[in-house]
């Protein structure tokens, strides 16, 4: 009996010794706590890793290069507290509660994706906490009357605005547009935007259908789409389904002049997975390595500039994730959300959510991520997107012309 007690206590002590450093600690006076239910496993693990890396990179810059945040007469540093939400709605809500009530964070960040961002928003609202939306693009998030949700990613309705303008500019004879999207919150808002834009620009929508988000075989939908014989196909949803759509279009020998896929096509993994079949495929992106936003450019436009330049951001990101990995837009938009918060806290000179929210509303600035400005609902209106295209295994920015790193390949080469 005695031995059992002894063993047990040694075991517990050893276990406690391992776990203790990981327990939550409340902010001391000079610290500002940011809480984030991050998607580190589950369907959005890839985007989640990027977002966490982006936030850590900018935190590093704010605390070490900039020297912290000046608020209420002192210099405070940012502290980042995150848990893995497993890409699940239930975990998002319970982790937000935990971050707010038990970790007592000052500001919250939304998880990745429109669906999860929407799931967590009511919790942040309930506690009157600022909720920085960096990866939820759906316009619907800003039609619910939420007061504390602030968007950094551009709204879904604008994803394909540039793409369609590009087609109109290069090839006025291309008229028929087919839309094939995942049936989820984000893709639906993108599709609606593309549909409206296409109508404005005089395109004809010849096919407009959704597929379930977790789909295994798109053949029936694509055979149907093939019959409409479109010039332009735009669609997609997230990562796996985008690859599947591209692959099965090739399998069925459907040859559009332009193919643009949301989310999937902007990731390096897309080109690796599809090889030659990715050639000429496009995707709208919020930020790409190679965009040319600079302090000088901001000055020319008469806008305030904050944060590291592109190369500095990439270096900080690599340091944060501990890998030789180029950040994609999921990292950039999460990092830019931190910059917005920093400026707003200083402007409000307070940590009170209402003061900071007001300051965010008045804020307009530029950073490596581009412009940042929100409307009265919290929706991002100051940021413009770019279109990237896969050319010989590389992502090239082809639209708008001002941001080009290469000429668009149009019409796209046929699938072999």
């Amino acid at each position, binding site marked *: 009996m005695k031995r059992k007690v002894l063993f047990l206590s*040694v075991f517990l002590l050893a276990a406690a010794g391992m776990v203790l450093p990981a327990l939550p600690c409340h902010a001391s006076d000079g610290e500002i706590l940011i809480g984030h239910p991050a998607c580190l496993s589950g369907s959005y693990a890839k985007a989640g890793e990027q977002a966490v890396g982006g936030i850590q990179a900018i935190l590093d810059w704010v605390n070490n290069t900039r020297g912290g945040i000046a608020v209420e007469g002192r210099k405070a540093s940012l502290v980042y507290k995150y848990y893995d939400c497993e890409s699940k709605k239930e975990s998002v809500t319970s982790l937000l509660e935990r971050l707010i009530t038990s970790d007592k964070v000052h500001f919250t960040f939304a998880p990745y994706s429109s669906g999860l961002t929407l799931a967590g928003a009511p919790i942040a609202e309930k506690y009157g906490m600022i909720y920085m939306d960096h990866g939820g693009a759906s316009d619907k998030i800003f039609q619910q009357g939420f007061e504390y949700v602030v968007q950094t990613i551009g709204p879904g309705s604008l994803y394909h605005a540039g793409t369609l303008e590009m087609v109109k500019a290069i090839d006025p004879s291309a008229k028929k547009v087919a839309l094939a999207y995942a049936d989820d919150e984000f893709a639906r808002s993108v599709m609606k935007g593309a549909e409206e834009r296409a109508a404005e620009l005089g395109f004809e929508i010849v096919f407009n259908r959704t597929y*379930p988000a977790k789909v295994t*075989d798109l053949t029936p939908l694509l055979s149907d789409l093939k019959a409409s014989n479109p010039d332009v196909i735009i669609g997609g949803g997230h990562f796996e389904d985008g*690859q599947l759509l591209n692959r099965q279009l090739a399998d069925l*020998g459907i040859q559009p002049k332009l193919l643009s896929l949301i989310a999937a096509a902007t990731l390096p*993994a897309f080109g690796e997975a599809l090889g030659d079949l990715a050639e000429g495929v496009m995707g709208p992106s919020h930020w790409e390595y190679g965009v040319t936003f600079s302090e000088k450019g901001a000055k020319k436009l008469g806008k305030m500039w904050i944060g590291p330049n592109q190369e500095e951001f990439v270096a900080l990101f690599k340091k944060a994730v501990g890998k030789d990995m180029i950040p994609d837009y999921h990292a950039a938009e999460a990092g830019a959300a931190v910059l917005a918060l920093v400026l707003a806290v200083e402007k409000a000179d307070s940590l009170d959510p209402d003061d900071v929210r007001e300051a965010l509303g008045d804020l307009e600035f530029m950073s490596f991520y581009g412009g940042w400005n929100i409307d009265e609902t919290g929706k991002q209106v100051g940021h413009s997107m770019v279109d990237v295209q896969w050319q010989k295994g590389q992502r090239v920015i082809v639209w708008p012309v001002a941001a080009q790193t290469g000429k668009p390949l149009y019409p796209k080469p046929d699938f072999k």
Partner: protein
Amino acid sequence: MFFEQLSGNLVQGLILGSVYGMATMGLSLIFGVLQVVNVGHGAFIMVGAFTALILFQSLGVPPILAIPVALLIGMCLGMIFYYGAVKPLVSPSGAGIRKVGRRQLGKAAGVFVAVMIAMRILSGVLDLNIAFSIFIAIILMYAFLVYVYGGRRQEKGPELATLLVTFSLGVILEEVVKQIFTSEARGYNWDLGKLDLGFTVLPFTKILASGGSLTVAVLLYLWFNKTRAGMAMRSVVEDSVGARVCGVNVDWQYALSFSLGIGLTVTSGVLLTMFIPVGINPYMGGGYTLKAFVIAVLGGLASPYGAFFGGVVFGLLENGSYTLLAALPGGEPFALTRFFSFVMLLVILLIRPTGLLRRKG
């Protein structure tokens, strides 16, 4: 146009269905013999998909040749997981005679502490981080507990416990694969050309995937019905007590069926990537788990080739119904295919509650 699309979708559905069927046989086999529902099913499919991907990308092995490798990997995993986690819960015989006291728990804790201390000392020499040390210590402690408790005489665990165990195994596999390969969605390009049927186009890899599935199903059927080993396994399905009386080693049959079931599932992962060679990631299995349950019930839960048949029916329903539903005005046909397939499932179960291929009594 309508008939062209319908026939195209039916042909595609047939091919998809045979792969679905293949992906369900392992689930049915394990349920039939052990009465264990493998909730981690999809994770094993994912292991197969990664096997095909890695062999093709780093060694240039064509996926069709990855099948035996996948079967072997799957059977090894199956054996390890059976003896390491499942056996204590389903053991029908109380085979072991080792007596276990509470002291063993203390010893297990001792193993953990000893390993932690050893790792701390070693970390001066090697570059070990603390998470890695804990990980190794937990594995060794677990192995010790399996050694102690695995051979113990005991009663069968409740069925819910096996659900939890297979669920955990699935999660562990997913996370381990994620640690090694990251959660990036991957893919490969194995181009063998295409067969143009006029109304639809079939890449040869898809045809090969379907042919491979059919071959495995036929081989399994022959093995079950024509060989002694197969019949021994079937006797356990029919009546495990009777089989024991007749001299069948039921314990070994349990281990073998679990291992074979996992082997088949991992193999199906390879065939699945021949059908869809993209979107390979650690969490890809979830959707297949759900589908496999439906197909298994449709085919008659305990019958592996019934599962194959059920898969074909499900594939035909899912793809074939699209054209019919697209002819309806309004609505989203793809979302409705799910609705349609599940209504058909209810109808089939209403008429044949034991599933399509379950023999009577």
